[in-house]
């Protein structure tokens, strides 16, 4: 099959529109395409990571509920590379430090356990939400960048029209079409970014709630054991 690039001015081929544009508009378009690539990289990476995180948390909680001995469980699963394992390991480490001394301050230990595990949860959430701000930035700025490209392109088109002393649609249309392409690219980058930002914020909130619940449950268990001493 003989496939040809359609570089006719009368088509909406993105490559033709890009090639005809002014260099400022070209720069804007390139930046927006890069932003879009970056957005989708974050979206793909983030969704696969969130899926993995949810699975590991579910498995870890199930195994934790089944196990009787916290020390044994920590020996087996404490070094897992997952947020919930790190929260668990932080709690166990603090428990060992606090209960290693001869005299045990129960209230102080409870408080320290809560603080340490809360901090671990916050750290995990921070790590997960690392790139969400990029999505937020792209989602809010890309339309404006595209609009800038459009305004610049239309200014240039009007200059060209004035130079031609001719206002027929054939003169006006290509310049405006290529200028509007910048806005189209801005929206093309921004819409997925905004949707992904909202979705991912929501899923991070859920993971955070889940980690907090796990930490609370673990804290309850430890505090029960503390009373037994």
């Amino acid at each position: 099959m003989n496939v040809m690039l359609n570089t006719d001015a009368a088509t909406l081929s993105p490559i033709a529109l890009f090639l005809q544009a002014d260099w400022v508009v070209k720069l804007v378009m390139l930046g927006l395409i890069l932003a879009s690539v970056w957005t989708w990289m974050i979206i793909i990476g983030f969704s696969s990571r969130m899926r993995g995180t949810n699975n590991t948390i579910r498995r870890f909680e199930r195994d934790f509920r089944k196990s009787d001995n916290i020390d044994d469980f920590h020996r087996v699963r404490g070094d897992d590379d997952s947020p919930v394992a790190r929260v668990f390991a932080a709690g166990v480490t603090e428990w060992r430090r606090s209960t290693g001394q001869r005299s045990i301050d129960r209230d102080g230990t409870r408080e320290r356990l809560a603080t340490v595990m809360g901090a671990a949860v916050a750290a995990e959430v921070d790590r997960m939400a690392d790139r969400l701000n990029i999505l937020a930035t792209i989602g809010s700025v890309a339309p404006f960048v595209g609009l800038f490209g459009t305004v610049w392109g239309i200014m240039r088109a009007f200059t060209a029209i004035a130079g031609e002393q001719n206002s027929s649609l054939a003169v006006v249309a290509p310049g405006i079409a290529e200028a509007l392409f910048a806005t189209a690219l801005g929206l093309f980058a921004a819409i997925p970014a905004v949707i992904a930002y909202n979705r991912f914020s929501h899923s991070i909130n859920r993971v955070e709630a889940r980690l907090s619940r796990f930490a609370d449950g673990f804290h309850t268990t430890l505090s029960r054991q503390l009373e037994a001493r």
Partner: protein
Amino acid sequence: MTRRDSFALSGSALGHVAVFALLSLSFLHAEKPVDVTPPIDVSLVSDVAMKSQSPNLTAPPAAASAPDLGQMSKAPPPIPAPEQPRVAAPTPEKKSAPAPKPADKPAPEKPKPAPKKPEKAKSAATPEKTASSKKKTEEKTAAKGPKIDKAFERSMAAIGKGSADAPRAAELGDAIIADLSSVIQRQVQPCANRLTSPGPGANEISSRLRIQMNRDGSLAARPELRGQTGITAENRRYAQRVAELAKGAFIACAPYHLPDKYYDVGGRGWKDIILTYKLPG
């Protein structure tokens, strides 16, 4: 950058390339003919009669009797009546006519003298007539089959007009190109008549348009501007508008009904032509 990140980056980049490639490649457009040979260059005159004055290539043959070459070459009238060529022009359908006419020269043994005669007679005739009789000769030979074809080629070679190497190119003679151009001109005229002149002097601009057509007569691509002449200081500002109007006229009046056999004659033909066009008025 972790392994997952690089996977995500490559996935995202690939997806973008795929989207832009899909939008850029013209899957929906018809394949553009590859420009292997230079398109035919024909010139359209702006004042064309709405009625054909040239041999009608699209009409079926009107006469049942096929004229023979000798008769035609013997006494060409000084100015052929407009209808005459149409009546006389045989088409390949003639081939199925039951018996070869007695007057037919092409006996297998002596093919040479027959086609030569018209050529000789032609040289004395006016150029216009030469063209039309040459065309008839060609059609005639096409209808007669290989034997006379060979003889015809030989005679063409003898007078240095064509070579046996490229016999097919010779089929698309000037006369046929002129006929094609007038047929196209007549078909585009209704659309051209609707145009309003953008300004004084605009109809002096002739635009060279490259027209690429499919076999069904529809346009294979948007008409392409290949230069303009007749631009003066006064009508310069209308030049672009004129070009757009001319393109628009050709787009509006598509598809064109042109003889199928001249669609692609050895790489040339009306599938890819350059027309010089002036706005009427």
